[in-house]
């Protein structure tokens, strides 16, 4: 699943080494990111976020971390959040809040059925397939 824009969210976890904060890059922030309103349930209105809780973050993302890794990641994640935190400095007084960061128009599909060509390949890629079902471990609780 590709993602085109990543908005500021308190609990997103970035892959290692992909996003090193580089305060000296002077990269121009794309116009579209100037208009931001966070609607995430986790953030409070305005600028303050919950204090970083890496174990809880890992739990919600279903990623297991050793205590060492927790210690190692905490400051790195904190730095990424601070980097995004620069956006708080933008004066939004005279800006219309927008719902989304994208300004592209509609992208629709007609309601016409199409059968997929490579169903066999899809089925073959399923780790545990017991015809006709996908076999999974028993999990009682929805999160």
């Amino acid at each position, binding site marked *: 699943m590709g*993602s085109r824009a990543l908005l500021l969210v308190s*609990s997103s976890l970035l892959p290692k080494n992909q996003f090193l904060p580089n305060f000296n890059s002077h990269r121009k922030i794309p116009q579209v990111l100037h208009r931001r309103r966070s609607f995430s349930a986790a953030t409070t209105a305005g600028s303050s976020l919950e204090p970083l809780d890496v174990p809880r973050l890992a739990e*919600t993302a279903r990623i297991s971390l050793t205590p060492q890794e927790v210690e190692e990641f905490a400051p790195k994640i904190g730095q990424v959040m601070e980097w995004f935190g620069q956006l708080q400095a933008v004066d939004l007084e005279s800006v219309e809040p927008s719902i989304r960061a994208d300004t592209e128009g509609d992208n629709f*599909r007609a309601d016409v059925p199409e059968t997929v060509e490579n169903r066999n390949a*899809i*089925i073959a890629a399923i780790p545990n397939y017991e015809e006709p079902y*996908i076999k*999974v471990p028993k999990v009682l609780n929805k*999160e």
Partner: protein
Amino acid sequence: MASTIFRSFQTHPFVFHPTTLLRRKNVLLYCTMRSEQTQTATQEKVKPQVKVSNLNPNKKLENISKDYEAVIGIETHVQLSTQTKAFCSCPYNYGSQPNTSICPICMGLPGALPILNVKVIESAVKVGLALNCKLAMNSKFDRKQYFYADLPKGYQISQFDVPIATGGYIDLDIPVEFGGGHRKFGITRVHMEEDAGKLMHSDDGSYSQVDLNRAGVPLLEIVSEPDMRNGIEAAEYAAEIQRVVRYLGVSNGNMQEGSLRCDVNVSVRPIGQLQFGTKVEIKNLNAFSAVSRAIDYEISRQVLLHSQGQDKEIVQETRLWEEGAQKTVTMRKKEGLSDYRYFPEPDLPEVFLTQDYVDGIHNSLPELPEMKRRRYEKMGLSMQDILFLANDMNVAEFFDTTIKKGADAKLAANWIMSDIAAYMKNEELSITEVKLSPQELAELIASIKDGTISGKIGKQILFELLAKGGTVKGLIEEKDLVQIVDPAEIEKMVEKVLSENPKQLDQYRGGKTKLQGYFAGQIMKLSKGKANPGLLNKILLEKLNAKS
């Protein structure tokens, strides 16, 4: 079909559960009394029409219930009957072989991107307009994130804080047998989302099985205001939602198939208290009757706990309705609220609606059930007739066509509700499948009205028309069914029968006046059912009393 089943439930509510007979009556009494006293802006008074039963084992509960008011809200998920899923071109057919309608998009395989189906927006706008909502001209999709085996992407594409429709209401009429009355319930919001797959647990519990045919099927979630006050109102709300989505043609609204799912939220509070009580969610409701009974049970459960001072025992939780045991039971207690980490779906653009687009849809809406009911009311039909006719869009259409051809509304309604409905039930046909056309029904009614045929003959012709089609005029001619209205001809038949039955004639003269029926029957038989009954009896009586 489900609606006709419900209709029959409504006319015989006590048949299936005699043990709950008394409880039902009590709750009904409680309900009607409650409805009288609680005046919310959206409700009207209900006339209490239930007699207090003498045998009353639940009288204690009934007395306690008087002090409490139930507050009920319903979340309904409507599965849209589009040709393809919401975000991919996979078809959806209920009952297909598992995992045959899948693709990289609905399976959440890496790199796949969703593309919105136009019909989903169209359906959402239709429903929003039908429910008198305010439409959001700009709305968006969000990711609702959680992990579960039937959710391939690890998130559900839904709408969180900017749903496509908000702040509407729905009008309905409570069936006559439950007290009648008009109601207006608020609709908080309507939004678009996708369905998850199906998860089944193995018999020994050691593993589970997933079928992703249903993953990605478009849903509309309709959330009501907590305006309902008892099981009947809630069940009727659900039934009206079903009517509306069927009228609009956006869903087949079958609870049994899972294309209409209701989750109910119930709380109670002492009369007069403004603060809501603790809310309990009830799931696993598979029929409107279950909705009604589950709510009534839950209200009783909560009221009982309150009355025993144990209202702290009522916790915010999800309970399951057990159809067998006829009670709600705890599902696992949740530890804290779910954190779904909503954020705007980056892979889907904003949803823009133009006023032209909305107007176009608005103008294409059919006459909705509420409008039909009010129109039929103006025609002078009884509420019972109105509710029957407006319940099924096709029946209403049949009725409308019949009266357009000039038939009297009340007569047309009677034919449809009695003989035609009985035939449909016996043969398990819908009104669109019977061979009788509305034009011919109008013709039949006219023929009876102007005396061409008698009412009895009319019924016979009807049966033939339903089964084989044809025209009224044709059948009358073919079977020589024209009513005999010539007094002279009838007189001849009367005299013949009287002369052939001297013994009975003497008995009649002797005082056995009941024998008039016997003679009438014989004369009718002689006339092959064609004699006008009124004229027949008049002449018969004359002859019988004349010679004495």
